[in-house]
């Protein structure tokens, strides 16, 4: 089930919290942990019960490998089991995620006609596979304690981080599962968690979903876009993916907090980044961490000279692109980021750490931020598009500066999509639309921009959170508004006959 669903909010979460803390209050720590695990599996199986088999097999297999690596510690056998583990996890991921892409590529290259298998991609498989790979490697390195099976399975399946990250490491989670001081209901954490969940939910349903309808409209038939509409569609996706993904992670952090569990931050206001390297320190941070630890450093990191460093960076981004999706668009997106990161590093290597006057620094940073933000925007086009030609088409529309009256027109359907019912009625009551035409389109874009560029991120808000009348009213208001926005009327945009 999704966090932004009624069954999750009205049934799953209350049930899960009550069951977990009641069992714990009788010091039934293991049954409580089993209960949490069972609920997590229900959460996962609710999407599609067939997924359950995959995750359960994966958990058992990895736990078995963990056992044998431990048993044959410091021998050649341990290494074999470690490699087996990595290959096993990558094979599962490869089979479910990349088989069709592979067949399609073979068909293209060899002009063959092998039918696609249309394998259903189990949700979250990219995340739980990586978590287990890191676990297997850490076990081999001797960095893993003795864990019982239930704790291990809970680490993989713990529902807040199961389907969209963050990519948590075993030591971050299992230690907390074993900590008995975390087994008692903590109202401070509970309210913090509710606050954080509410922020995340609102990012998802009040902002990301609205942009989402504009984005799908734009990418389905880009030939309809004017210059300015194309830019609105591109920016909309930049906001959609951030608010969607970071909103989901905020909800995850909030949910885990309700169980007295801290999970790591995944987004640290990435659009504030001045350089692309900074962007990757702030965007999907746990993925960057994974690639740094398990790919970049083993490849030699920056210890083998500049050229090798650049190559290593490039490999990481190529893999990251491929991890994000089985398609050439994702690979190209990864390559673009890889190249841009390398260029940025080269420039840094050339300039070095010179002391510059403050004014120059500020102007330089501003300039650098603009370039980074534009680059990120354009690279998202490839990430989102159905195909590379689709992406190029959207970009062509954006860069064909048709500034005649037609070029500056925004498609009324785009303006219309920002008119969620509450805003539409507000406009009808106030006549604001007559004074500022299309105020909602510009309003959504400007407000989103202000949020990503200037406001503190939600984790900071959560840490500073104090229960008082103001935060109470704010949380109730935002929660109710979001709750009533979970299911909207989908506009059936693509009229045919």
């Amino acid at each position: 089930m999704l966090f932004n669903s009624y069954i999750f909010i009205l049934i799953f979460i209350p049930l899960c919290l009550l069951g977990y803390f009641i069992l714990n209050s009788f010091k039934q720590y293991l049954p409580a942990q089993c209960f949490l695990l069972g609920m997590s599996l229900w959460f996962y199986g609710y999407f599609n019960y067939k997924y359950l088999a995959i995750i359960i097999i994966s958990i058992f297999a990895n736990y078995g490998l963990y056992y044998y690596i431990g048993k044959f510690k410091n021998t050649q056998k341990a290494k074999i089991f470690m490699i087996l583990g990595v290959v096993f996890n990558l094979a599962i991921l490869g089979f479910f995620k990349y088989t069709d892409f592979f067949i399609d590529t073979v068909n293209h290259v060899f002009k063959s006609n092998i039918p696609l298998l249309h394998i259903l991609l189990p949700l979250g498989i990219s995340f739980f596979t990586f978590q287990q790979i890191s676990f297997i490697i850490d076990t081999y390195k001797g960095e893993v304690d003795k864990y019982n099976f239930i704790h291990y399975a809970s680490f993989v399946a713990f529902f807040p981080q199961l389907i969209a990250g963050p990519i948590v490491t075993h030591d971050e989670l299992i230690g907390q599962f074993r900590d008995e001081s975390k087994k008692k209901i903590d109202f401070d954490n509970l309210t913090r968690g509710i606050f954080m969940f509410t922020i995340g939910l609102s990012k998802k349903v009040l902002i990301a979903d609205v942009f989402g309808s504009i984005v799908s409209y734009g990418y389905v038939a880009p030939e309809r876009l004017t210059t300015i509409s194309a830019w609105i569609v591109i920016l909309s996706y930049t906001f959609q993916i951030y608010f969607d993904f970071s909103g989901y992670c905020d909800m995850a952090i909030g949910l885990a907090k309700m169980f007295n569990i801290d999970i790591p931050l995944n987004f640290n206001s990435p659009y504030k980044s001045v350089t692309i390297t900074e962007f990757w320190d702030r965007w999907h941070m746990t993925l960057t961490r994974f690639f740094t630890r398990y790919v970049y450093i083993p490849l030699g990191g920056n210890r083998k000279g500049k050229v090798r460093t650049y190559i290593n960076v490039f490999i990481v981004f190529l893999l990251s692109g491929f991890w994000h999706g089985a398609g050439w668009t994702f690979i190209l997106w990864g390559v673009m980021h890889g190249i841009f990161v390398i260029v940025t590093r080269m420039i840094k290597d050339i300039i070095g750490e010179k002391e510059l006057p403050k004014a120059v620094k500020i102007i330089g940073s501003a300039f650098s931020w603009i370039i980074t933000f534009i680059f990120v925007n354009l690279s998202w086009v490839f990430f989102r598009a159905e195909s590379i030609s689709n992406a190029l088409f959207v970009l062509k529309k954006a860069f064909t500066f048709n500034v005649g009256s037609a070029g500056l027109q925004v498609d009324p359907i785009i303006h219309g999509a920002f008119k969620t019912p509450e805003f539409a009625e507000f406009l009808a009551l106030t006549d604001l639309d007559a004074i500022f035409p299309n105020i909602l389109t510009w309003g959504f874009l400007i407000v989103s921009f202000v949020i990503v560029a200037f406001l503190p991120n939600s984790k900071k808000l959560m840490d500073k959170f104090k229960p008082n009348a103001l935060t109470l009213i704010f949380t109730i208001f935002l929660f109710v508004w979001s709750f009533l926005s979970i299911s909207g009327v989908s506009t059936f945009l693509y009229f045919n006959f």
Partner: protein
Amino acid sequence: MKKSKAFLIIFIAAVLIIVSLPAALVVYVDPYFHYHKPLEGKNYILRDQRYLNDGIVKNFDYDAMITGSSMTECFRPSVMDSLWGTTGIKVPFSGGSFLEVGDLTRTACEANPGLKMVIRGIDCNRFFNKKDERDYDADSYPTYLYDNNILNDTKYVFSKNAIVEAALILIQRGEASHYSSFDTYSNWSGDFRFGKDEVLKSYSREAVIPAESQLPLTDEEKHIMYENITANVTDIADEYPNVEFYLYYTPYSIYYIDYYKRLGELDKQIEAEKYITSLLLEHENIHVYSFYMQHELIEDLDNYKDLAHHGQNASDQILNWIKDGTGELTEDNYEAYYDELRDYYFSFDYDSVF
């Protein structure tokens, strides 16, 4: 800790109360007719077809209905009522497939034992759809309104769209400030211009390079049609023998026929229609109509806003034709009709209408 406890209790209580109020409003007003027919004396907002139609056929009082794709949107049930003496409704699905329209028809027959007649447009451009073809994916489809599972009604009663609509209906403001009838429901006739210039905007003839020969109808296509028509049309007629079904092929403009001919698909299209007619005529309570020989309709582009869509006047005309038997196909006449049709459209001087 104490403050947090108070926060939590007030939060839960406040949220439960605040979200219950609009939910109660939605159940009471029921803007999508999921629970009951409209409240007396209130104007409802007839707009979102996929949210409304199921509720309409389940809960309204009617004994006749018009349904189909957007080709049926400009029909006026009041005209049907004056011709047949019925109490009619119109429930169109823009972009609706045979499956979608068929499901709705089945629901109507099941929910309303008083239903006497169904007028349904059969879309010629959907002949070769698979029987389970649907244009919209299940995720964006409000399936929760189509079942009787009360648990998933949360998606309805807590939806701000439904809440805002319910409020507008209750205070009769905005779109609910004026009366909207089935005649005007989804009727776009007044919103578009009609005529040759408009139709040409949806058809660039030169872009379609004329085919050298006409494609034949294959057995595989026949099989697909058989399955589609059986599951979504004739089975329903067999299940409800007391309902009379008036099915007509949606009449597109002469430009559409030109388009099919240039594509090399006109022959196939005619064969397909003939085959479907043969399937339909096997059922006593199905009456079949084709208006492709009503030249005053097909060849007068003033009836059309684009290649396919005709407006209200033509829709009124179609109802009159159905009533007086114009264009009706029977076991005795249908083969001759399609021979005549083929001769006519293969010898037609298409250049003369451009």
